[in-house]
């Protein structure tokens, strides 16, 4: 009798839990992508976010590392994520389709958020994350604050200094990239557009030098050596920086479409010649 009553109570509790899971905000959220980590940490209610990706503990790319250190990390593998019994998994557009597919087959709700490629998309990205987490009001406030801050910061000078974005392997970012938007908002012009590069691509060092940028914004080198990053400190570029161009660094603040990009814009305005 007691047993039957207990099982009835349990059944009722389960039904209630299932109903809540369907209707109410998710209570066990796991993020497996650096950029969703940051938006989730920014917007989640206390205790709502269970785990962030291990990349968010990497000081080279993670701006919110101090906060991220307070969360257990995951390595984005389906098995460990499933073991946390999440009711929502936050992933990026390019998260391994095998991982996402496997989690969905196991009945886990997975939201894949698109890559932010312009400043204008950031308020919407914040609102989307707010909706997913059931934190619409908070997200709206953050999004409005960001829009206002960006408008106050945005520079539109008559003469725009020409800047070169120079990453490992001579990669650069052209238009339709967040980095290009950060440059523009800071009052600079991107020389990759003069070179006819759209999106991202390789700008050979020779052509970069022939374009004579006023500012060279270099990627930061990771610990450990690599030949790919050796180009960042090639003597030809060092000489150009010494004799002609200013220097600046592109770092973790540039990686994700979150309000942190405002810091990158402000810093760049300070460095611009």
């Amino acid at each position, binding site marked *: 009798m007691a047993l039957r009553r207990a099982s009835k109570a349990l059944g009722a509790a389960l039904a209630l839990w299932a109903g809540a899971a369907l209707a109410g905000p998710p209570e066990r959220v796991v993020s497996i992508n650096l950029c969703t980590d940051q938006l989730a940490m920014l917007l989640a209610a206390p205790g709502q976010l269970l785990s962030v990706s291990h990349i968010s503990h990497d000081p080279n790319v993670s701006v919110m590392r101090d906060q991220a250190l307070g969360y257990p990390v995951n390595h984005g593998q389906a098995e460990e994520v499933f073991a946390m019994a999440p009711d929502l998994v936050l992933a990026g557009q390019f998260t391994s389709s095998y991982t996402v597919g496997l989690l969905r087959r196991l009945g886990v709700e997975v939201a894949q958020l698109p890559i932010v490629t312009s400043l204008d998309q950031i308020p919407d990205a914040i609102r989307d994350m707010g909706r997913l987490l059931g934190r619409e009001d908070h997200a709206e406030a953050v999004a409005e604050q960001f829009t206002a801050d960006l408008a106050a910061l945005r520079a539109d000078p008559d003469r725009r200094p020409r800047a070169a974005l120079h990453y490992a*392997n001579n990669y650069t970012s052209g238009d339709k990239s967040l980095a290009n938007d950060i440059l523009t908002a800071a009052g600079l012009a991107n020389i990759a557009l003069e070179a006819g590069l759209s999106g991202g691509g390789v700008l050979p060092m*020779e052509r970069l030098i022939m374009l004579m940028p006023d500012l060279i914004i270099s990627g930061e080198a990771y610990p450990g*050596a690599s030949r790919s*990053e050796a180009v960042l400190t090639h*003597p030809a570029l060092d000489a150009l920086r010494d004799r002609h161009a200013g220097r600046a660094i592109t770092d973790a603040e540039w990686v994700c479409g979150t309000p942190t990009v405002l810091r990158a814009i402000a810093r760049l305005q300070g460095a611009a010649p």
Partner: protein
Amino acid sequence: MTRALALVLILLVGALFALSLLIGPAGLTPATSLAALVRGEGLAETLVMREIRLPRAILAVLIGAALGLAGAAMQGYLRNPLAEPGLLGVSGAAALGAVIALQTGFAAQVALGLPLAALAGAVLAVALILALAGPRGGALTLILAGIAVSALAGALTALVLNLSSNPFAASEIMFWMMGSLADRSMTHVWLAAPFIGLGGAVLLAQGRAFDALTLGEDSAASLGVNLPRLRLTLVLAIASMVGAATAVAGAVGFVGLVVPHILRPFVGARPSRLLWASALGGAVLVLAADIAVRLVLPDRDLKLGVLTAIVGAPLFLHLVYKTRAQGL
């Protein structure tokens, strides 16, 4: 005949060196290039010519000469046309030494740490090969020893790069195994030149010993060749050249195989003449290959070793076939 060959090779090196200086994505005219290179006219043009193209062309000459000369010396000493630093794992072991020096920070802390570590790797490989398949060993022993050393060095290089904390390191396995001269600088020239110059001078001075060795070890010894000392000199000189070349450009294979093979008929099979001819010929081959990679895929950094292997591997198969026909 020999003098004509020397003249042709020197002219080829000069012409390809000039062509190498004129090719690049900046699209400078020859007149602008020359004015920038010689007189330093225009900041951008001068940086492109002096800091990007000049070191690349110089390195192509140095590395080609080092590999050609090392190949000729190994073939002369082992009296085996299949001997070559790339095939025998010497380049691979040098790459392993270089990768270890870079990833442990030894290359950054110690002046000349990078070429010295590559040299150490190459010394181990040459010594191992000569010990396993010295002058008395057959072609088969030599190649098998080379395969083993190459495989081990390649595996360990991949392991070190995969263990690196740098996310780019693992993707550079291709560079270390195939070689490239893209975006090198004068720093690399100064790292490699002393080791290649010293090793080359020492090897070229051994010409008479190599000539004597063609008569067999006993005859060479009776002609006054100190064989143990020759062996030690060879190990150090070859390792010095191949080590320095690999440290700055990765492992470029088949140069030391192809060049002596092509030039041998022109020097009357005299090893002493083959040495300097192979140095010049190696420079020609690597300059040409480095020009070709820039013309074929200007934006992609096609690896040098890809081209040299396409030329070299069929020749290698041909040599294996010939060696078999001779019953070795």
